[in-house]
């Protein structure tokens, strides 16, 4: 097989409805054997592109070639022998059986003279077997569940024996079991039957996991095109969805994964204090994000590279002191950390388990001018033996520690602190404060 043959090619394609142009200038191609995911926000023209290929929507400019042939010159039947389409959801009001529906996939090969033959029945049989739909072959299509229906439509597309299958959000109406089932089926077709796949997907994580290549549409043009790693980055995704989000590596599939955070802006803190977060595991992720979103000037340390807290700092460009992964924190690093928190108005020890390796994080806190908060959970995940308690006692000799039960309580305290500091000026610890109790 010639792996570089272009199955689908778009040259400066523009199309739309009436005066409105949905696709403005799309140029891309899909090569034989590829599994390409087409992503984009709602209304960016993903489904329109599929309509253009299947000849349902005439182009305003540009052209599309299918297997090297000009799309507009293909007869409806010829096109249906090259391209199969699996729509988003597909309702049939009439009582057709599953087998009837799958057999419809053979229509492009029939004519007035040639009717269903043994070969067609064999192909239909095979398609139903591949999709596990042969068990309800005689049931009515409109009595099946969403997931079953989608498998039947997939079987119909397989029966079409085409070079390429286009899928228009094939999983959007399904629960995760059926979503994965459909995506696995498609992957298998792509790998085993060598069918080229172009799928419109609105679920970025699904696309990133299953597609070899992703193409991102925005405002009717291709904004990014490449491997999931190249396409799914924070910059692309934030332009695409206009919201705050985070990209992380899914450890199971080694594919980038999007974590949507928020669309509406968090209410900004009235007084953006400087806050230093002592963390290092995964307990401070949410806190870091919220503090950042509220407009506080955040720093953090000392973090082992690779930890979730560290990833979040990277994402948000929070200044932090780093240490190699799985390495105890050295005195040198802690000195850097102390430097970083020197000017902080507030220092918080987040929900982080303490052991010998990171106890160093607490060294020298008593010398800092910032008001000190301590998350109570840290006490219950204490693996230092006596170390943590002793260290806290040591700090408490010269500096007050305010214990908080959870991060929300901390956020409330910090907001109050901010107002107070604004009124009084100077250092927080010198101001008489309420809130914060002993453990």
């Amino acid at each position, binding site marked *: 097989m010639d792996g570089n043959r272009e199955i689908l090619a778009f040259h400066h394609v523009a199309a739309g409805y009436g005066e409105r142009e949905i696709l403005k200038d799309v140029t891309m191609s899909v090569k034989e054997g590829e599994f390409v995911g087409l992503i984009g926000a709602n209304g960016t023209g993903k489904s329109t592109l599929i*309509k253009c290929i*299947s*000849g*349902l929507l005439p182009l305003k400019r540009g052209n599309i070639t299918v297997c090297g042939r000009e799309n507009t010159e293909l*007869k*409806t*039947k*010829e*096109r*249906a*022998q090259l*391209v*199969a*389409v699996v*729509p988003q959801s*597909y309702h*049939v*009001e*009439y*009582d*057709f059986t599953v087998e*009837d*529906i799958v057999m*419809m*996939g053979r*229509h*492009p090969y*029939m004519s*007035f003279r040639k009717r269903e033959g043994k070969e067609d029945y064999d192909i239909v049989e095979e398609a139903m077997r591949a999709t596990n739909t042969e068990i309800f072959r005689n049931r009515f299509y409109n009595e099946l569940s969403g997931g079953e229906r989608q498998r039947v439509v997939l079987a*119909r597309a397989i029966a*079409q024996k085409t070079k390429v299958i286009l899928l228009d959000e094939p999983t959007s109406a399904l629960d995760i079991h059926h979503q994965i089932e459909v995506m696995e089926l498609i992957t298998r077709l792509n790998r085993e039957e060598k069918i080229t796949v172009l799928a419109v997907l609105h679920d970025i994580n699904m696309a990133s996991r299953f597609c070899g290549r992703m193409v991102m549409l925005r405002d009717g043009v291709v904004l990014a095109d490449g491997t999931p790693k190249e396409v799914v980055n924070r910059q692309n995704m934030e332009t695409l969805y206009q919201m705050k989000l985070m990209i992380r590596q899914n450890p199971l599939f080694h594919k980038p994964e999007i974590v949507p955070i928020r669309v509406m802006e968090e209410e900004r803190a009235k007084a953006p204090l400087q806050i230093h977060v002592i963390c290092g595991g995964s307990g401070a992720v949410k806190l870091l994000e919220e503090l950042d979103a509220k407009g506080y000037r955040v720093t953090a340390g000392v973090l082992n590279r690779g930890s979730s807290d560290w990833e979040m700092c990277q994402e948000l460009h929070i200044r932090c002191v780093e240490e190699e992964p799985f390495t105890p924190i050295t005195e040198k690093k802690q000195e850097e950390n102390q430097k970083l928190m020197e000017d902080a108005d507030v220092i918080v020890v987040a929900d982080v388990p303490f052991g010998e390796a990171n106890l160093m994080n607490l060294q020298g806190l008593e010398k800092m001018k910032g008001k000190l908060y301590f998350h109570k959970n840290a006490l219950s995940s204490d693996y230092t033996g006596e170390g943590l308690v002793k260290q806290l006692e040591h700090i408490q000799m010269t500096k007050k520690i305010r214990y908080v039960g959870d991060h929300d309580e901390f956020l409330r305290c910090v907001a109050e602190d901010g107002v107070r500091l604004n009124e009084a000026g100077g250092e927080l610890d010198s101001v008489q404060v309420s809130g914060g109790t002993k453990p």
Partner: protein
Amino acid sequence: MKGKNRTLGILLSILICIIIMYLCTMSGISAISLQDASRIIAHEFLHLNVSMEGISNGSILIIRDVRLPRVILGFVAGASLAVCGAGFQGIFKNPMADPFVLGVSSGAALGAAIGIVFHLNTSLPGMSGTMILAFAGAFLTIGLVYNISKVGKKLPVATLLLSGIAVSQTLSAAMSVLMILNKQSMDQIMFWTMGSLNGKGWNQTLMVLPYVLVGMILLFSSARELDIILTGEDTAVQLGVNVEFLKKKVLFACTLITAAVISVTGIIGFVGLVVPHMVRMIAGPKHHVLMPLSLLFGGTFLIICDTAARSMVAWEIPVGIITSLCGGPFFIYLLRQMKKNG
């Protein structure tokens, strides 16, 4: 229904159909015994060597030239309307569509009314001016509706239905005006619009047949594509159906058939609506079963109604009244059944 079942079902229906045709030819107001009638058919049509002793010429004439052609024309008309109904319900994806939904009947009626009012006659055997005008009216109407609703190369179904209704209403109004201005022709026009097989013989039957045959071939050859279009036009295109061509083809075939039939019989309602519906409930939506069965049941249904129309009372009741009288309540019954079944 597939394979063997389909063949079996169709063969059984053909058998029932022949029996009913036979019985209907036998029955009527003039008492001709079953045995005599059978002998007449065997002798006159099958050219068997049967003794014709004791059978009057009148009886032979009634069976050969009156009842049998009427039964056959009835069958052709009923079959035609039912198959066209199935075809229209297919392309419109609407179970409420019937052959007259686009106004073919109003066009034909207006044509017929003009023919009646102006007493147009022709020298063609069996073909009156009324028939020719009705046929022309039917075709012109569909041509008009088609041209109104065409958008570029496409024929949007919704626009087609709406312009059909609009044109149909206008033509009906025109016919009413014609009737009011010519009160003396009113009865005749009214009678025509109710549909009747009265006085129709071999000439008319043979005249209608070519149109019906051509139309039927076009429709039957579209069976698979009609199945697919029922699942949605976009999908049909993606499965290789030339949807726009199919719509035009079905529209043309149905117009050809219905125009020919109703120009001879007048407007016979409800057959085209109810029969395909009923068949779909029994045999499912697949057109390669739906259309042949609609043909057989539609034909049979109309023969039964026509036999009732000519035998119940001493004078003729227009068969269109009978079909509607039977069809209406039956249709309501079906709708209620459907509601019960969800």
